[in-house]
C-alpha cells in the first residue's frame, strides 16, 4: 500500500477529500504527501467511485499521470477546489500536484486569470455541455505566460452528488509563439518589403541622377576637348586671318578699282574677318578659365550698344526692332566684351531665323525682379553651381524674335558644339556653345524656348550688383 501511495505521490492527482465534500486541504508540511493520504482514503472509503475496471486507484492514477495531455478536475460543489491534477498538468503549469490540490484558482493564479477560469467553469456547468476554449492565457507562477487549448467538460451526477469540471488541456505556448513569431516575421517582412520598395525607388532615382550627371559629364568632356581643339585651331586660323586682313587693308587704301561695289565688299570682308576673329577669341575664352574682366555695367545702354553692332544685319533683313527697356534696373557685374559677344550671337541667331520673311520683329526687353522660390536656374551642364538663389535681385534680358523657331527634337542640341542648321560658311554651330559658356562664367543663366506664337525667346538672367 505504501508503494501505491508513493506511486500516487509522484504525480498526486486525486483529492478524495474534495470528492467527499470535506475541506480537502492538504497539509503542506505533511511530508507523507497528499497522495499517501489519498490513497489510504481511497482504499478505505472511495474505492467504489473509481471505475471498477481498474484494479485500484493507483492504477487509475498511473494512467492519468501518463496521459500526454494535462488533466485536472475541480469540485464545483466545493468552491471549485482542485481535486485532480495530473503529471502533465504539473509540467505545463509548473505547479505541482501538491501545490494545486485542494486549492482554488484564486490561490494559484492572479485574479484576472482566476476570474477567467471561474467564469468559464460556471458557463460550462450552466450549459451542461462540453466547451472548447481554443486559447487561454495563463500566468503561471513558475513558467510565466503560457497558452493553453482547453476542453472543459461538466460532470454532473446528482445520484452521487457530483458536480465536477473536468479539464483537458494542451500546451499551445510553443505553437502560439511560433505563430506570433510568424506574424511578427510577416509584419517584419512587409516592413522590409516596404523598405525595399523605398530603397528601390531611391535607387532608380539615384540612377536617373547618375544618368543625368553622366550626360553632363559627357557634355562637359565634349566641351573641354572642343576647348583644347579650339586653342590649337585658333592659332592656325588666326594667321590666315591676319593675312586676309592685310590683303583687305592693301586693297582698301585709296585704290580706284573702277567698280563702285568694291569698297562695300572690302568693308564686309573686314567685318567677316572681325567676326571670325571674335568667334575664335570666344572659343579660346571658352576653353580657358581665364578671369573675367567684370565691371558694374548699366544694362540698358549696354544692350543698346550691342544692338548697334548688328544694325547692318537688321536693316539688310528689314527687321523692326522693338525695345522695352525697364526703368530702375540695377547694374550688373559683367565682362563687357564677352557679354557683347553673347548678345550679338543671340541677335544674329534671331536675325538669321527671320531672314527671308517679311515683317520680322526683334524685341528686346530688360527688367529686374526678385527671384522667386523654384525659379533658380537648373541649367544642365552647368557645373559652376547655381549662384542665384530665391530672393536674389536679378536682371533679365529677353530677346524675342518672330523667326522659324526651333523644332522640338532639335532644341536639346542647340548648345552642342558644332550643331547648326545653317549651311557651311554661314553657321559654325559654335555660337550658342560659346554664349552659354560665357553666361556660365558670369554665374548667370540662359534659357532658349520656342514662343507660343512664332519664333524664339532667349532669356538671360544675371544677379544684380549689390550696391546701386
Amino acid at each position, binding site marked *: 500500500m505504501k508503494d501505491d501511495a508513493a506511486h500516487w505521490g509522484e504525480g498526486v492527482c486525486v483529492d478524495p477529500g474534495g470528492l467527499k465534500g470535506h475541506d480537502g486541504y492538504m497539509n503542506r508540511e505533511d511530508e507523507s504527501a497528499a497522495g499517501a493520504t489519498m490513497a489510504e482514503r481511497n482504499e478505505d472509503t472511495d474505492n467504489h467511485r473509481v471505475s471498477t475496471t481498474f484494479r485500484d486507484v493507483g492504477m487509475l492514477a498511473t494512467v492519468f499521470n501518463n496521459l500526454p495531455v494535462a488533466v485536472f478536475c475541480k469540485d464545483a460543489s466545493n468552491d471549485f477546489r482542485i481535486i485532480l491534477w495530473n503529471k502533465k498538468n504539473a509540467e505545463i503549469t509548473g505547479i505541482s500536484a501538491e501545490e494545486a490540490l485542494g486549492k482554488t484558482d484564486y490561490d494559484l493564479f492572479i485574479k484576472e486569470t482566476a476570474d477567467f477560469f471561474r467564469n468559464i467553469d460556471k458557463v460550462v456547468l450552466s450549459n451542461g455541455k462540453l466547451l472548447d476554449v481554443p486559447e487561454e492565457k495563463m500566468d503561471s507562477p513558475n513558467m510565466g505566460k503560457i497558452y493553453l487549448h482547453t476542453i472543459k467538460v461538466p460532470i454532473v451526477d446528482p445520484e452521487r452528488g457530483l458536480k465536477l469540471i473536468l479539464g483537458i488541456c494542451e500546451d499551445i505556448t510553443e505553437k502560439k509563439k511560433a505563430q506570433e513569431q510568424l506574424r511578427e516575421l510577416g509584419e517584419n517582412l512587409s516592413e522590409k518589403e516596404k523598405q525595399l520598395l523605398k530603397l528601390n525607388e531611391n535607387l532608380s532615382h539615384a540612377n536617373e541622377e547618375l544618368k543625368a550627371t553622366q550626360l553632363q559629364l559627357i557634355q562637359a568632356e565634349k566641351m573641354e576637348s572642343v576647348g583644347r581643339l579650339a586653342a590649337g585651331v585658333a592659332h592656325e586660323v*588666326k*594667321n590666315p*586671318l591676319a593675312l586676309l*586682313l*592685310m590683303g583687305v587693308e*592693301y586693297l582698301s587704301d585709296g585704290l580706284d578699282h573702277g567698280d563702285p561695289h568694291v569698297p562695300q565688299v572690302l568693308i564686309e570682308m573686314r567685318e567677316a*574677318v572681325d567676326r571670325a*576673329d571674335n568667334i575664335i*577669341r570666344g572659343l579660346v575664352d571658352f576653353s580657358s578659365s*581665364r578671369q573675367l574682366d567684370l565691371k558694374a555695367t548699366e544694362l540698358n545702354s549696354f544692350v543698346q550698344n550691342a544692338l548697334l553692332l548688328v544694325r547692318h544685319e537688321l536693316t539688310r533683313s528689314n527687321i523692326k526692332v522693338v525695345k522695352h527697356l525697364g526703368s530702375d534696373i540695377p547694374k550688373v557685374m559683367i565682362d563687357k566684351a564677352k557679354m557683347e559677344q553673347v548678345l550679338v550671337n543671340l541677335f544674329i541667331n534671331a536675325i538669321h531665323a527671320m531672314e527671308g520673311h517679311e515683317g520680322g520683329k526683334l524685341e528686346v526687353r530688360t527688367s529686374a525682379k526678385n527671384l522667386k522660390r523654384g525659379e533658380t536656374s537648373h541649367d544642365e551642364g552647368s557645373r559652376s553651381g547655381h549662384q542665384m538663389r530665391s530672393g536674389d535681385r536679378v536682371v533679365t534680358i529677353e530677346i524675342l524674335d518672330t523667326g522659324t523657331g526651333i523644332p522640338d527634337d532639335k532644341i536639346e542640341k542647340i548648345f552642342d558644339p558644332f550643331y547648326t542648321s545653317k549651311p557651311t560658311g554661314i553657321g559654325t554651330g559654335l555660337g550658342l556653345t560659346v554664349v552659354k559658356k560665357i553666361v556660365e562664367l558670369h554665374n548667370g543663366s540662359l534659357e532658349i524656348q520656342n514662343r507660343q506664337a512664332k519664333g524664339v525667346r532667349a532669356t538671360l538672367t544675371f544677379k544684380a550688383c549689390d550696391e546701386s
Partner: protein
Amino acid sequence: MLVDDEEGFTNLLRMNLEKTGLFEVGVENEADSAVDAIRAFKPDVLLLDVVMPGVDGGDIVAQLRTDPELKNLPIIMLTALISREELSPDAVAESENLIMLSKPVNMEMLLKVIEASLGKKA
C-alpha cells in the same frame, strides 16, 4: 623689319607699310636666321611673330636683349595666341620696349603702335 614665317603675311604687310611711304622694310621668314638678319639690317623697330617653327619668338627676344646694340630695339610681337599669359613670361617681363598685338591686326592699329615705339626710341 618683319620676322614671321608666313611669307604671304609678311609680303602684304610690307606692301602696306611701304605704301605709307614712311618705312624701309626688311623681311625675314626663317626663324633660325632671324637674329643674324636683324643684326645685319639694324631696324628701328621689329615686328616679330611669337610662335614660329624651330625657334620661339620669346627666344629671339631673349637673344636680342643680350646684344648691346639691339638691347633697346623696340619690338612689337604679333601673336596668333590670345594673350601674354601664353608667352614665356620671363622674356616678356625682362623686356621693356615690347608690345604685344594679337593677330589679326589692322593697319590703323599697327601704325599707331609703330609710331609710338619709334617715338619712344627717339
